[in-house]
């Protein structure tokens, strides 16, 4: 990797100021994407501002009809949380299947969402469960947060401090993994929250996570695996690569959605 300045922040505000003050500053959360990127010399930030020491950014709060997960909470802690397991088991299970144990012991929810990898799992949870992304400056609705692959509406120096998930009536996440990377080739979160049906798809879209409106419509009237499977998704705007054609991804969206509906009950 190239040389950079390493800074360790004591608070979210301190971290935000440090990144803003730097010539080309970057937050360092779990580092599961950033560090390999640096090692391959694909990025050359002037400063890394490490968030690891900020205790205010870690933890899971039970808000009754919602759960708030702070930005630097690791995947393993979400997966093992009693609160998450009891109130949104789909979210605990999603976190428990991100990457491998090493990744789950380092990677964080804030880091994952800020990076917005088009095949990451958490974006499907945020969009599918209609979560709110909380930053050091504002609250952003899931609908407004994602802005294309590896892109979000976060501004320079803006830091995800927490994510608030409303508790759904039912939800499940089903992933068909990329055989090589085990990222989602197609991952689908289905949820019913406050009577609202949402189906969020990660891994498949050229612009990252998106809602599968046709499947949502089908499920709104008939919450069943067959209803989901019966929707033939268009392959327009879907990714095509050596692991999956757009056509295959379109097909897998319906299949994964139907399996998620079965799992959600």
């Amino acid at each position, binding site marked *: 990797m190239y040389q950079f300045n390493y800074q360790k922040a004591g608070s979210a505000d301190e971290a935000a100021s440090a990144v803003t003050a730097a010539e080309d500053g970057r937050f360092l959360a779990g580092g599961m994407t950033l560090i390999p990127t640096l090692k391959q010399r694909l990025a050359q930030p002037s400063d890394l501002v490490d968030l690891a020491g900020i205790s205010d950014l870690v933890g899971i709060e039970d808000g009754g009809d919602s759960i708030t997960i702070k930005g630097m909470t690791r995947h393993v802690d979400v997966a093992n949380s009693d609160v998450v397991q009891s109130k949104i088991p789909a979210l605990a299970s999603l976190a428990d299947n991100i990457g491998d144990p090493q990744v789950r012991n380092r990677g964080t929810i804030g880091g994952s969402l800020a990076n917005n990898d088009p095949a990451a799992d958490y974006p499907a949870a945020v969009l599918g469960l209609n979560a709110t992304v909380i930053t050091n400056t504002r609250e952003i609705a899931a609908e407004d947060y994602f802005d294309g692959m590896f892109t979000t509406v976060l501004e320079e120096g803006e830091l995800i401090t927490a994510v608030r998930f409303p508790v759904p009536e039912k939800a499940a996440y089903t992933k*068909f993994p990329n055989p090589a990377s085990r990222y989602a080739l197609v991952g689908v979160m289905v949820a019913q929250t406050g009577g609202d049906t949402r189906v969020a798809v990660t891994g498949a879209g050229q612009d990252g996570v998106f809602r599968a409106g046709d499947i949502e419509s089908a499920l709104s009237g008939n919450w069943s695996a067959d209803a989901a499977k019966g929707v033939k998704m268009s392959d327009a705007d879907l990714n095509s690569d050596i692991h999956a*054609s757009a056509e295959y991804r379109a097909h897998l969206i319906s299949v994964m959605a139907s399996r998620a509906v079965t799992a959600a009950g």
Partner: protein
Amino acid sequence: MTGTGIGASVKRVEDQRFLTGNGNYTDDINRPGQSHAWILRSPHAHATLKSVDTSKAEKADGVIAIFTGADMAADEIGGLPCGWQIHNKDGSPMLEPGHPPLAHEKVRYVGDQVAIVIAATRDAARDAAELIEIDYGVLPAVIDMDSALAGGTLVHDDVPNNRCFDWEIGEKDAVDEAFAAADHVVSIDLVNNRLIPNAMEPRAAISDFDRSTSQYTLFTTSQNPHVIRLLMGAFVLQIPEHKLRVVAPDVGGGFGSKIFHYAEEAILTWAAAKVHQPIKWTAERSESFATDAHGRDHESHAELALDKSGKFLGLRVATKANVGAYLSTFGSSVPTYLYATLLAGVYTTPAIYAEVQTVFTNTVPVDAYRGAGRPECTYLLERLVTKAAREVGIDPVELRKMNMIQPDQYPYQTPVALMYDCGDSPATFASALKASDYAGFEKRRAAAEKSGKLRGIGISTYVEACGIAPSAVAGALGARAGLYESAQVRVHPTGSVTVYTGTHNHGQGHETTFAQLVSESFGIPIDQIEISHGDTDQVQFGMGTYGSRSLAVGGPAILNACNKVIDKAKKIAAHIMEADVSDIEFADGKFTVAGTDKEMAFGEISLAAYVPHNYPIEEIEPGLDENAFYDPLNFSFPGGAHICEVEVDPETGDSEIISFTAVDDVGRVVNPMIVEGQVHGGLAQGVGQAMLEGCVYDDNGQLLTGSYMDYTMPRADDLPNFSVATQSVMGASNPLEVKGVGEVGAIGSPPAVVNAILDALAPLGVEDISMPATPLKVWQAIQESSVRQAAE
């Protein structure tokens, strides 16, 4: 009895250091005053080097020196040699274009070496490398073999149609006659997918030059340090053996990819004498993907002629093999003598003809990878035989049985040069059928159907040739080196033993298995025995480890040296115990005089040999230190039967291996635990080839599968609990009667897996699927087939 002799599942003695992080790998080694190298590589698959300007980089912090291909050319450094000369059909030799260690005038694949930057630190070297200004004249790249053979773009200007050679084996006329008389002809077109080796330890090297003695030293991640010394010293750098020490310390896996003499070894060794300080280089994982020699990459058309009853009459094969941009050390032998000579397989096919064209492309060189030619052959045969069973309407088990070589037919001369010395394919096949409950499969298929899964079963019966090799035979076929092995057995005064072997241990467990041979021979426990390998200054000579040869060729060398020790020890014992040497018996570590109670322990004799106070000094020399070279009379021929059962999810195309049964004949088993582990590892790689791994270049020669994000290495959860057994016929052509086990798993298994998937998909009308059978490919095959069925 020591309990550590032949047949004991002794725990691996090397694991203590490996599992506690105390291995001593090349990158763990640091030399005083060491500098670090970064190799600048071509980002283009095919380009002229119009100019290479290092002036800015040379001024960068920490830079010691930068060398380019022009510098090596100015020193008249030779090209990297190929170890095996193949001849064309017309008798002319293969074309061997130059293979400069640092590219000169032209680069030919992404990753080709362009310059070496030597600096105080690795980061400084890499920083400076980014300042080198290169004007590439980008040329069109030729990636697929058909385009290459069509000519147009030439990888080497002096190789028309990019064809390295056009070789044949077998009797063409006899095969034509067989086909003319056939009742059935079954044909198949197959791709044997290109693989990237992925040893856990990336390649690394440290070079050093001692100005006071003009002695070169190279530490390198090699499976065969003496071969590297020979090839690099004699052909590339012109350094005589006595001035060149090559050390391959602990090596973290090779699978063939560390056999070859790589450019970096020569570049570093040459440069060490220029900069007068040691130079260290360790590949990044990305470099491993791009520059370790790849494996396989064949395209074949094959036809099988059968009579009315299903008896095989003839086999005709045409193969194109990709050798990449340059001929690697064994790149020419793998798709020829290690491949087509096995085309009889386990069958009595009387007439076989194969022709092989090897093709240069703008990709990294292709060379031996676990199995090297035999997996390609086995895949072709077992896919073809399974297809024949379906087309002719004979059960695949029965078709195999009726064509198998029977035990009483050994030694069996095949129509393609090899003579199988011993074996019993029907026996291993029968055992595998029983162990896999083949008879009960249809019930399991029906049960799977109820849960929406398609279940299939696939068979592969195979034989392979290893224990490479009889030197005279290999030489007649074009090998440019001998292929014997050597051992030195040094008994120390107090009776402990150090064995120097010319083979190399990089995961196979030699330090345990070989010690067991000595334990058995001398009747001493293995904690009294050390196996030493890898250092050309310590080990007399050796050809290294590949082709499942270490025990089959290196083992008898150790055994023979042990026997020399025992012969000498008996003379010492006879002298001291005042008996005739013919009356001395040796068993369980004791020398006894027959018919008396006189005895001396092994350690007492060794002490006498080194403290020769009472000693037959007029008859024999002091000391107890013997060496032996062993050159086998034939290859060895492991074989067996693999049966795989899969379930396919027709909605997603995802296939899961439910069970895998392997019954292998590997000859005498020295350490059953290690043998089982070797089979497991081979099977994992075979499953990897069949379902997961596939190297993909785009049309411009960029490697699309250049990391684990896109290249699917097998993981534990991709694999079933293997059911593994050995069932051996003794009689292999070496004194230990061992056959070799390192590669059987990777050779036998891929067709079993693919045949199983095709069996599962057969009800849908799917007839072909290519490796790796990924979910995408399986799903697409189902779609295309369903579409076709609907249309009909």
